[in-house]
């Protein structure tokens, strides 16, 4: 089913007599698989409002992300939260949509400085599991009128309602990007360096550490964005600040810089390789110890250590119980992004939190027809 209007969508949900699988572009099949009837937002598309001077864009949930990026680029603006493209990692095809990005709260390396998708969401329209058409938030940057269901919808994976329209805050694109690079740091030193960089006044917009690439050395990357003069100044200050770790070199070539961060954003080192992939959100300085607890795995650190992408080859000494234990003792959560989809993939939840989550789901989708089973939390060990 591919409704063309919000009313048509509401009619479909009201009349549904079985479970529905909500789909944007179909590029992020996360969580438990389902053979429910497919309900696509692909035809709820198009940019309905774009005011560059107000940093505001409103578009249908099914609007391809590429269409939005193109419109923004024409005004030297962008989506600052840098949404990841999951196709390479998950081996999927299709076209990523705005609704999908919001439903999964997809962000990228700049999340550490600019915020996540949820931080840029100004308003939503959606149809809940009862078929109610609901509006929350609006199109202005400051809005505390009533409860913030906009945040609730971000990252709820279509389990509370089907997004039809989204209003976003956008930001100017910088004129210059600089990437500082150093090879050969051990994980612990690299995270130490990244934490210091992020604790400096020089506005780091990317802080990642990548494992050795085919016999090469591990690479630590720091991104700075702004005017040419500002990037040059901050890069020099940063090189001095981190001199004790080694000599970071500066690259300001636009294409290479963009490629570097697309590589981190899309978890390129793990694309096409066998094994499960996990995504861990942790306290940055604890990241190396967590990874050290999980022998046989390979890690990419983003967000200065706060985000760990973990490749777990078959037969590695670390499985779900070990991963959850390593995270739980230090604070954070772990989700299996790629792997056996007959089992739960979402992070475990405390019983109190799970009770609220279930309560909300029953309110918005009393028949349990929207993406049933999708956000089922994994069992804790």
């Amino acid at each position, binding site marked *: 089913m591919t409704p063309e209007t919000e009313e048509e969508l509401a009619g479909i949900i009201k009349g549904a007599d079985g479970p529905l699988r909500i789909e944007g572009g179909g590029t992020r099949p996360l969580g438990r698989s389902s053979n429910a009837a497919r309900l696509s937002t692909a035809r709820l598309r198009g940019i309905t409002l774009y*005011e*560059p*001077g*107000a940093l505001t864009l409103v578009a249908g949930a099914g609007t391809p992300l590429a269409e939005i990026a193109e419109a923004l680029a024409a005004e*030297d603006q962008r989506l600052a939260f840098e949404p990841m493209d999951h196709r390479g990692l998950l081996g999927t095809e299709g076209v990523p949509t705005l609704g999908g990005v919001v439903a999964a*709260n997809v*962000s990228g390396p700049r*999340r*550490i400085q600019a*915020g*996540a998708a*949820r*931080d840029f969401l100004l308003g939503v329209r959606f149809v*809940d599991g009862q078929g*109610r058409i609901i509006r*929350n938030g*609006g199109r*202005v*940057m*400051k*809005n*505390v*009128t*009533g*409860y913030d*269901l906009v*945040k*609730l919808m*971000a*990252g*709820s994976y279509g389990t*509370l309602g089907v997004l039809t329209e989204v209003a976003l805050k956008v930001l*100017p694109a910088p004129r210059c990007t600089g990437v500082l690079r150093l090879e050969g740091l051990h994980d612990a030193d690299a995270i130490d360096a990244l934490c210091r960089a992020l604790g*400096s*006044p020089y506005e780091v917009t990317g802080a990642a550490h990548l494992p050795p690439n085919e016999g090469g050395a591990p690479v630590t990357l720091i991104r700075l964005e*702004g*005017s040419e003069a*500002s990037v040059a*100044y901050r890069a020099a200050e940063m090189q001095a600040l981190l001199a004790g770790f080694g000599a970071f070199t500066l690259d300001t070539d636009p294409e290479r810089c963009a490629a570097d961060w697309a590589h981190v954003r899309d978890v390129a080192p793990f694309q096409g390789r066998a094994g499960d992939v996990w995504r861990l*959100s942790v*306290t940055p*300085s604890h990241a190396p110890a967590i990874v050290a607890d999980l022998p046989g795995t390979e890690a990419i650190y983003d967000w200065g250590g*706060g985000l760990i992408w973990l490749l777990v080859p078959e037969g590695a000494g670390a499985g779900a119980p070990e991963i959850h234990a390593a995270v739980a003792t230090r*604070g*954070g*959560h772990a*989700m299996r992004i790629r792997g056996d989809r007959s089992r739960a993939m*979402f*992070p*475990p*939840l*405390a019983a*109190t*939190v799970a009770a*609220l*989550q279930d*309560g909300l789901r029953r*309110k*918005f989708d009393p028949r349990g027809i929207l993406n049933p089973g999708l956000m089922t*939390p994994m069992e804790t060990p």
Partner: protein
Amino acid sequence: MQMPEPNPAILSRKADLVARLRKVLPEGAVIDDVAETRAYECDALTAYKCPPMAVILPGSTEEVSRALAICHEMGVPVVPRGSGTSLAGGALPTADSVILGVARMAEVIETDYTNRVIRVQTGRTNLSVTGAVEEEGFFYAPDPSSQLACAIAGNIAMNSGGAHCLKYGVTTNNLLGVTLVQMDGTVMELGGAHLDAAGYDLLGLICGSEGQLGVVTEATLRILRKPEGARPVLIGFDSSEVAGACVSDIIKAGVLPVAIEFMDRPCIRACEAFAHAGYPDCEALLIVEVEGSDAEIDEQLGLIEAIARRHDPVELRQSRSAEESAAIWKGRKSAFGAMGQINDYMCLDGTIPISQLPHVLRRIGEMSKEYGLGVANVFHAGDGNMHPLILYDANKPGDLELCEEFGAEILKLCVEVGGCLTGEHGVGIEKRDLMAYQYGPDDLAAQMDVKDVFDPGWLLNPAKVFPLDASDARRIA
């Protein structure tokens, strides 16, 4: 403003309630003396007052939990209170309610510069969070104008903003974790020192829920390293339209100032008379501030100046030093005090799309004539958050009512042009009855569904946010 009638059955159990609360709370943490409870009869929306049945001042999450469990069991409404600086009546009690004040929970629990977070008890004031980390060169970004007094608990309840949110966001963008106590006493942790909590974004839902979903006793907040410096430029224009166009051009040019403040002529004159900041006597004034090293600031201010010059400003003054910066901010920072000197006023808080600025200012001017009440405008232009100050005479019978009616019309105008009723103060009781103007019945029902899940008995701050007729069936069920 209508509030529900106090429930006589609850009032009759006051002695029993107070005795039970005293058993679980320390000496002096339960106040039931009528004279003493009067200190809690209102917040900063002083036009409405009502002493609560009792006041409790717990000192820990554990005590909050025990006290809430008792109120829950006895069916007594609880009104959480931070520092009582709400301009929307968010902490206004009813006669049959217990005020739960967090003022005795003001400790810093942990400061972690490596991971750039601080964990505090929520009775701590906003400014003293920055105070706890500024020696190390850090700060907490949200800066509501009441920051000297307002508590983090209230900031979370109202999702408070401030002058610098164009760059740093509001409370919800700087809040990483909370300890939440539900009405039945259940304690839970949401989020922490990591980003993006697991499951639904309950943290995002709690923030801005006006104390209706739970009591937040501890919070993990993001702290940031202070920029190397900051300096403003002051730009005067002979029309508000031109000032509005200039704001839009600055943003379109890709400069992202940390603040863009706007003042109109009545406000400029009042501030000038009060603070002698040396402001030009013109129709509209912008204060645009940027951050960075000296050279970075010069570069950005140069760009802004070039854009402003295309709009023929009547005055353009770039700060070159800390003293000049202070002089430029002096008038703006005293705006509310200055207006208070010359008049009683009501401070509104709507947000509009920036493109609608000239239209909205023109309409407010017209309505000002119709109502015969003066208006001064001062606001955060970068994000469209307006603070029209309506001037009235509190001693003149009927003037407050007229002022409220005028205020409601302005807020409706904000909604009509694509904006909203409140940008950072919250709904409380002040805008409660206007909610149906912004949201349809299903939109409101969806929000009230959330309250049903967190607080099925509707005991936490019950008569706020939602129009009484819309929430009646749920509150009284």
